[in-house]
């Protein structure tokens, strides 16, 4: 009996991100899966210890390229909580809108990756096109397509430009108008159901045991969302729902993603309606001489892939003493994925990985 070892990634068309899974295979079944991260390890947390508080803002967003904004938020909140800076209410609303927009963009990227994985080019191309429309909004708002560096301690970098709200609503309407098309073509497609239902199934207990959050947990029926349980920014100002599904398989996870996207768009509309006028940032001390009092904090927020946490320690100096991100993909990609892959077919390795929304750079950091 000869053992077969297959490498799924890093150089693999089904691999989104620089990540590798070593599969032990018997027939077309995975017997054992070993996640092999580290292809993107840059020692971020070490590098951040070498840079001053404010210089870390361009750094921190680069941890996760798919959705850099939640990283910015986590760092900004942590710094604010250590330095005791208040954020104006309008800035809170803008942050929420900005984060939800980022969530839509990130989910569209995930949808591209997922449908591309299944060989579903048409839906994939649409999703990527719509994500680009979202990126255009970001570009207008912040000047950057991918990395925005928009959230700032004490608020956001700038207010919405003239007419931005109108264009935002128009763009979201044009994307939302395509939801029936997506449904007809992808989500309600019988073959999508056949490919995804029952695949990579994890039960609620397993998900909780292994630290699952985000869609991985919500697809098992737990309405666990940091935006609800520990609201930050303006998420407690408007009513909204946490979409869940019960089955815990790839199909449920992707449907949760779809529902979340729609919910996000609705939330943006509600936030826009409620948005107060006023300043968008509070002044902070001279950033080049900024020292933050000694202390530690742990903040968390809900990124598009799950719960993002940041443990930040200051020794009273001009640089962080220790930064440690708890990224959602970390348990998903290293613990849950290894479990979920066992016993599945080789065809479904990428399917499961992308349905768990494993993003490699935030694992490696």
């Amino acid at each position, binding site marked *: 009996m000869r053992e077969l070892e297959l490498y799924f990634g*890093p*150089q*693999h*068309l089904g*691999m*989104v*991100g*620089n990540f590798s899974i070593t599969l032990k295979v018997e027939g077309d079944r995975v017997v054992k899966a070993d996640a092999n991260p*580290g*292809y*993107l*390890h*840059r*020692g971020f947390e*070490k*590098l951040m210890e*070498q840079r001053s508080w404010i210089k870390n803002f*361009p*750094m921190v967003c*680069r941890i996760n*390229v*798919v959705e850099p904004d939640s990283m910015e938020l986590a760092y900004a909140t942590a710094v604010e909580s250590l330095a005791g800076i208040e954020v104006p209410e309008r800035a809170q609303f803008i942050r929420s809108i900005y984060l939800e927009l980022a969530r839509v963009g990130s989910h569209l*990227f995930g949808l*591209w990756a997922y449908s591309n994985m299944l060989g579903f080019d048409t839906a*994939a*191309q*649409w999703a*990527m*096109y719509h*994500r*680009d429309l979202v*990126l255009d909004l970001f570009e207008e708002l912040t000047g*950057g*397509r*991918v*990395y925005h560096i928009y959230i700032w301690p004490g608020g956001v970098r700038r207010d919405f430009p003239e007419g931005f709200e109108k264009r935002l609503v128009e763009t979201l309407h044009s994307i939302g108008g395509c939801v029936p098309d997506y449904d007809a073509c992808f989500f309600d497609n019988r073959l999508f159901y056949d490919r995804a239902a029952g695949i990579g199934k994890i039960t609620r207990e397993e998900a909780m045991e292994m630290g699952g959050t985000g869609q991985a947990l919500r697809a098992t029926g737990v309405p666990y969302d940091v935006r609800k349980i520990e609201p930050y920014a303006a998420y407690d100002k408007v009513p909204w729902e946490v979409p869940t599904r019960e089955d815990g398989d790839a199909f449920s996870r992707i449907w949760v993603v779809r529902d979340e996207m729609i919910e996000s768009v609705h939330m943006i509309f509600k936030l826009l309606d409620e948005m107060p006028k006023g300043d968008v940032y509070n002044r902070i001390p001279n950033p080049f001489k900024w020292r933050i009092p000694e202390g530690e904090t742990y903040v968390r927020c809900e990124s598009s892939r799950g719960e993002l946490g940041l443990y930040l320690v200051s020794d009273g100096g001009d640089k962080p003493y220790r930064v440690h991100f708890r990224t959602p993909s970390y348990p998903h990609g290293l613990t849950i994925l290894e479990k979920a892959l066992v016993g599945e077919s080789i065809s479904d390795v990428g399917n499961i990985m992308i349905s768990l929304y494993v993003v*490699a*750079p935030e694992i*490696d950091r």
Partner: protein
Amino acid sequence: MDRNQLVKWLKAPAKMGHKYSLHAVYFCTGCGIIEVPPSITARWDAERFGVLPTATPRQANLFLITGYVSVKTLRAIIRTYEQMPEPKYTVGFGSCPINGGMYWDSYNTIKHLDRYIPIDGWIAGCMPRPEAIFVAVTHLWTLIDKDMADGYKRYRKHYAAYRANQEKVLRGLDWPPLFPVEEQ
């Protein structure tokens, strides 16, 4: 197709074929990969230029190194590059492979990628926009036209030096040399 093009096609079909059929090996080396999907999909559609991602290095002739290269990735990059059939072109995408970029002081990322594999062109910026990929592609066309995209020849010529650098960083490679290494 105008007349000039036709003449070029007849004169050097191989060169023209390489120009208009740049198949990039799909390798998400770094965060630059985030701009590759937009550029190959509906908005920008790189297939207009004949640029397509391929599944394996054997089928490709363009290696787009998208972003920072960690030491672990470098091994995979060298392996992938060596498996590509000649002629092959490499383009470094983003600031990080050029000189380390914002990770200039990271202990785990490669600072100058061209010390390990030959690079035919760079796209600077963090993050370069998808248009930059097309600029790079058109620039590569002129380089190919002038026979200046000769990275693979340089690799062959200086293989011993490249291999020495690679082995130094990676503490040995687990495959035999691509070309016979001669004493210099």
